[in-house]
Structure formats: structure tokens, C-alpha cells
């Protein structure tokens, strides 16, 4: 039944409790003589009653798990991306060290300079220096502690070793990225590896 009084909007405010006390009192008086407004308010109540029956129950456990898994998976992903970036940068430096020609004396790359050292030989020289330092530290420790440490001779780093380290770093970078991406995809689908199959809860 439609109200012809033109106070439909007031009926809504009254029903929603959005009217001040005085206006509310006045509208109650109006309601007594207006069957249209009464019907409208009853209708609003019936809609509310029907909607309150539409209750999905508690949040399904599978959904809760998925939601709680969004950040614990995603946050380490960010860390892994940084780790991957650092590995990549380190790999690039190694690559540069291995393949750029070095000018004798300065250590700066200088293509076209006749006095170039082989980069691998240069690296071997650096590795030898590091090894000598290790031996020197070991000797000091030996003197101080009066123990017979057998560190052995300085072990120079070789070009092949560096190449292997470089390859390992590239592989680690790829692995870290792939693992992060896999976990991210799994998180987007659900906590289980085959998250998409876990949707049905009833």
C-alpha cells in the first residue's frame, strides 16, 4: 500500500532511528492516522527480518587460514627480493672483475692499453695478497698463543674458483626468486599447495 501523505522519507528516518525525539513524537501521532506510512514501516521491518535470516555463519576455517597467510608469506617475499638483488649486484661485480681488462698499476680498466694484465692473473694476484694476509694473521695468533697452527701456505684465489662462485651466485639468485614467486602464487591461491581445490567448505 502506498502512502499518499508524502512523508515516505520521514517514515524511513523514523524506522531507522535517525529522527530527533521531538520529530519522532510528532511522526508517531501521524502514524496513528496514516495506514500508508504504517504499511511502509511494516514493510521495512519485513525486509530487515528476511535479511537477518541470511546468515552465513562463522568465517570458514579455510578462509581464515588463507587470510592469515597473506602477510607471513608476502613479507619474506620482500626480504627475498632484496636478498636476490644483493646477490645479483655481487654477481655483476664478480663478472666485471673477471672479464674487464685491468691496467697495470692502477687497477682501473683501460682497454687498448698495451700494458694490460690478464684479469684472471690480476685476480690471482689479489687472491694471493689475501692469502698472505691470512697467513700473517695466523702467524700472529700462533706467536701469541704459542700454539702450532698449521694454516699452510697462502691459497691464492684462481679464475676458475671465481667463475664457480659467480655461477653459484647466479643460480642462488634464480632459486631465491623462483621460490619467492612460487610461495607468492600459493598464497594468492590458498595455504595449501593446491589452494584452488580447497574452496568448498560444506
Amino acid at each position: 500500500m502506498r502512502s499518499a501523505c508524502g512523508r515516505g522519507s520521514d517514515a524511513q528516518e523514523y524506522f531507522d532511528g535517525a529522527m530527533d525525539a521531538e520529530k519522532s513524537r510528532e511522526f508517531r501521532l501521524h502514524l496513528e492516522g496514516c495506514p500508508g506510512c504504517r504499511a511502509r514501516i511494516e514493510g521495512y521491518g519485513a525486509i530487515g527480518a528476511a535479511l537477518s535470516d541470511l546468515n552465513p555463519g562463522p568465517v570458514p576455517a579455510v578462509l581464515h587460514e588463507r587470510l592469515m597467510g597473506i602477510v607471513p608469506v608476502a613479507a619474506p617475499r620482500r626480504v627475498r627480493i632484496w636478498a636476490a638483488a644483493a646477490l645479483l649486484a655481487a654477481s655483476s661485480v664478480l663478472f666485471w672483475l673477471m672479464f674487464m681488462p685491468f691496467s697495470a698499476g692502477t687497477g682501473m680498466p683501460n682497454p687498448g692499453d698495451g700494458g694490460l694484465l690478464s684479469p684472471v692473473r690480476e685476480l690471482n694476484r689479489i687472491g694471493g695478497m689475501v692469502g698472505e694476509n691470512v697467513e700473517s694473521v695466523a702467524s700472529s695468533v700462533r706467536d701469541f698463543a704459542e700454539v702450532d697452527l698449521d694454516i699452510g701456505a697462502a691459497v691464492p684465489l684462481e679464475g676458475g674458483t671465481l667463475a664457480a662462485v659467480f655461477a653459484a651466485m647466479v643460480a642462488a639468485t634464480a632459486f631465491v626468486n623462483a621460490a619467492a614467486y612460487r610461495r607468492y602464487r600459493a598464497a594468492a591461491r590458498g595455504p595449501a599447495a593446491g589452494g584452488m581445490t580447497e574452496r568448498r567448505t560444506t
Partner: protein
Amino acid sequence: MSLPEPRSEVVERARRGDPQAFGEIVRIYERMVYNFAFRMSFNREDAIDMTQEVFLRLFRNFGKFEPSRGFGAWFMRLAVNVCINERRGRTRRSSLVQADSAECESRPAATAEIGKDRILRAVADLNPSYRAVVMLRYIEDLSYGEVGRILGLPEGTVKNRLFRAREVLRARLEKVGVDG
């Protein structure tokens, strides 16, 4: 009832990717979002998908949240937009009440059931943006102002939209002989 509002320090930590803080936000809002999604979709599986999508979007868009604004309204606006857009993208409405009223926990008595099913069917046929207003007002029991903050609408527009939605429902229910 009013929108729950987590402590600002929790929101800030969640924004920086703290899993515990994000978990707290999940616990505060998951039921509200899931209920709303269910009432928008009338389907439990869709509601699960929508809720998950809402929190994934929250995680991805946390950087866009300005701490000077209230988190609750900002987040619920995101949730409502996701549900409205998802709803528009799906075309399962036809079988909704038959298939899904069976999923509801409490079932009305047989005589009243027909009337309620018709009301629900009429609600399901509402335009999603009207339905969102109706659900926020009826189920979440939010004030016009709060509904407006969530939907980004002035209070007057919320009142109008709600009134029109109710009038549409009443007209449809009168047509099928239910006292709406």
C-alpha cells in the same frame, strides 16, 4: 553499531608489512567482510573468494592509505567496491535463493519462508550499489553518515539511495503479493 577501528599503531605496523599487525586487522574485519560478501553474493564460495580478494587488495594497496583518514571507513570502502565489482562480473543470480538459502544457518518456519524467500530474491535482483546500501544499513546497522563515509557519498545521497532501494523492493514485493 559503528565501524570497528583498530589502534592506529596496529594499522601503521600492518602497513609496513608486520604479519602480526595484519593478522589483528584480519581478525577485526574478516567476519564483517565475509558477512557482507555473502549478502552481496548469496553464495558461500563466492563470499570466500571475495573476502580473500578484499584482503589481498588491502595488502597491495596499504601504501595508499593515509593515516590521517579513518582506517575502518577506508578499508570498508575498498571491501564494498571489491564486492560490488565482483558481483557485477558474475552472472549466477538466477539460482541464488533456491541454492543458497539452504546454506543459511537459521531457517524460518515454512509459512513465513515463502515470503522471506521472495524478499531475498527481490533484494538479490537489486542493482549492486543499491544492495550495498541496504546491506550496510540493515545488517551492519550503520548510520547514514557511516554508510556515506564508506561509499564516499553525502548523507543525503545515502538516504535517497536507501529510500529508492526500499521503494523498489516494496513495489516488487507488492507485485508478487508479499506485504513488503
